[in-house]
C-alpha cells in the first residue's frame, strides 16, 4: 500500500491566538514495503505527523491518501483502514487493559470482526512473533516486566496484520537488549513485506535498519534520503540539534587525518570492517 501526503498541515488550537503549526506543508510518498525512519528533536512534529498518517488527527490543510484514496473523504471507511495501517504509540504498555495477555492482544482482531477463536489464533501468532512465550499468555499484563509489556502492546497492533506499521519511539526507556529485540523484530516484519515507519530520536537505531530517513525540523521535512546520504550532512544536522551516528564522526576524523576510509559509513559493524580492512 502506498501512503502519500500532499501539503499536509496541522495546527494545534487552529483559529485561536495560540495556534501552533506542528506540521507544515509536508508532501511525500512512502511506497509499499519501505522501511522509513523519521527523526527529529522533541517538538519537531514527528508524533503529530504520524498521527495524521493514521487519520487520528484531521489535517488543518492538505491530504493524506492511501493507494490514491483521500482518507478524509466522505464514505472512506476509516475503521477498516485501521486494519491496514497500524500505529504503536509511545509507551504503548500503558494501553493494556485486559485481564490476560492473550485477551488484550485479541482486542484488535476482535474489533476487525474475527470470532473469538480466530482472534485468539491471530493473537497467539503475533505474540510468537514478538517473542512472548506461551506460558505467559494467561497471565495478567500487569505482572510482566516493562520490556515484556512493551512487546505485548506491539503484538496487539501486529495481530491486526497491518500492511503499514507505524511506531512512535518504540525503544524509549528500554535497555540495549530490549532495544535490539524490538528493532530486530521490526526488521523481520519488514523483510516479510510490511511497510515500517519508525519514529525515533536515536540516530544509531535508525542508521542500522532503515532504508530511508526523514529528518523533521519545526514541522517541515529537513532532509529526506538514504541513511548515508542524510548523515553526510552532519553539520546541518547539528545546526538543528541532531547529530549523525557517532561512528561516522570517527571515520570522518580518520579521513581528515589522512587515512583512506569511507566516511559515509553509518553503522558500527561496517565501520569495524572498514577499519580492519585498512589495518590488514
Amino acid at each position, binding site marked *: 500500500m502506498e501512503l502519500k501526503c500532499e501539503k499536509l498541515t496541522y495546527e494545534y*488550537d487552529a483559529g*485561536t*491566538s495560540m495556534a501552533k503549526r506542528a506540521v507544515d506543508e509536508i508532501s511525500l510518498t512512502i511506497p509499499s514495503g519501505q522501511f522509513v525512519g523519521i527523526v527529529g528533536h522533541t517538538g519537531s512534529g514527528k508524533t503529530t505527523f504520524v*498521527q495524521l498518517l*493514521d487519520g*487520528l488527527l484531521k489535517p488543518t490543510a492538505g491530504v493524506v491518501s492511501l493507494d490514491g484514496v483521500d482518507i478524509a473523504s466522505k464514505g472512506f471507511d476509516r*475503521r477498516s483502514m*485501521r*486494519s491496514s495501517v*497500524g*500505529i504503536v*504509540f509511545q509507551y*504503548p504498555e*500503558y*494501553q*493494556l*487493559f485486559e485481564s490476560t495477555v492473550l485477551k488484550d492482544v485479541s*482486542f*484488535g482482531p476482535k*474489533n*476487525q470482526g474475527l470470532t473469538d477463536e480466530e482472534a485468539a489464533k491471530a493473537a497467539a501468532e503475533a505474540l510468537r512473533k514478538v517473542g512472548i512465550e506461551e506460558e505467559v499468555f494467561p497471565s495478567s499484563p*500487569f505482572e510482566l516486566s516493562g520490556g515484556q509489556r512493551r512487546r505485548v502492546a506491539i503484538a*496487539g*497492533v501486529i495481530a*491486526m496484520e497491518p500492511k503499514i506499521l507505524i511506531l512512535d519511539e518504540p525503544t524509549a526507556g528500554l535497555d540495549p537488549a530490549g532495544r535490539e529485540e524490538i528493532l530486530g523484530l521490526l526488521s523481520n516484519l519488514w523483510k516479510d513485506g510490511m511497510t515500517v515507519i519508525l519514529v525515533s530520536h536515536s540516530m544509531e537505531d535508525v542508521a542500522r535498519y532503515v532504508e530511508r530517513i526523514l529528518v523533521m525540523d519545526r514541522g517541515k521535512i529537513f532532509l529526506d534520503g538514504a541513511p548515508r546520504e542524510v548523515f553526510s550532512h552532519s553539520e546541518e544536522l547539528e545546526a538543528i540539534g541532531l547529530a549523525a551516528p557517532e561512528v561516522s564522526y570517527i571515520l570522518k576524523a580518520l579521513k581528515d587525518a589522512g587515512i583512506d576510509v569511507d566516511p559515509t559509513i553509518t553503522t558500527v559493524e561496517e565501520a569495524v570492517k572498514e577499519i580492519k580492512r585498512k589495518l590488514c
Partner: protein
Amino acid sequence: MLKDITLGQYYRANSVIHSLDPRIKLVGSLVYMVSLFLFNNLISYTAAALFLFFIIGLSKVPLSFMLRGMKTVIFIMVFTVIYNVFMGTGTVIAEFWYFRITYEGILNAACMFVRLFLLIVGSSLLTLTTTPNQLTDGLESLFSPLKIFRVPVHEMAMMMSIALRFIPILMEETDKIMKAQIARGADLESKNIFVRVKGLLPILVPLFISAFRRAGDLALAMEARCYHGGKGRTRMRVMRLMIRDYISILILAAYLAGMILLGIRCKGFMEYLVPELQCAAHVVKNWVINLF
C-alpha cells in the same frame, strides 16, 4: 476531542484581573454569584451581565475562548430550561399528560438560563485568570481561621492543588489512550449506546492504572523531599494586598450595593411580563382564528 473543555483551565494573559490578589478574586466571584440570586428582574440581569462583560473585557480573555468551554455544560442548561418550561405553575398555555406549559414556566426557564449562564461564565472567569496554585493559596489563606478548630486547611488545599494540577495531565492521557484504542479498532463513535459504554472500558482501565501510578510516584517524590504537612511551612510568594486590590474591593462593594438597590426598586420579572405575554398570545390566537 477533550481539548474543548475550557472550564477550569487557565488562560495566560497580562491583565489587571490576572494580577489581582487571588483572595479578592475568590471573594469577588462568590459575591457575584450571590448577587445573581438577589433579584428577579430584567434590568438587574442586564446590569449583572454588563458588569460581567466589563470584567471579561478587563481580563483580556477572548470571549470565543470562554464560550467554547460552555459546550460541556450546555446539557445542564438545556435540562434546566426543559424542566422549568414543563413543570411550572401559573397561567396555563397548554397541558398534556403530566406536563403543563405556563407563562411563568417559560419566563422562569429563560430566567434560569440567563442566571446559569452568568453563573458559569462568572466562575470560569476565576479559573481562567488565576493559576491553580494561586487559587489554592487564596483558599488556604481565606480558610486559615478554621485552623483554630483543627481543620486541616493546609492539607485540604494541597489535595485540591494536586487534583487541579492533574486535570490537564489526565486529560492528555485520556486523549492518548483513546487514540491508541481507536487505532486498534475500538468503536467509540457507534450510535449504539451499549457498544459505546462497552468501548469505555479499554480507556478507563488504563486511565485508572496510570492515575494510581502517578499518585504513587508523586507521594514518593514528596516524601523524598521531606514533605510533612503544613506545620512550620513558609511560602515563596507572600500574598499582600495592593492598591489595585483595594480599588477592586470598592468596585465590588459598589456593584453589590447597586444590585441590592435595583433588586428592591425594580418590579419583579413575573408581574412585569406575564400580562404582556398573555396579551401577545391572545393577539396571535385571534389572528389564527381569523385566518381560517
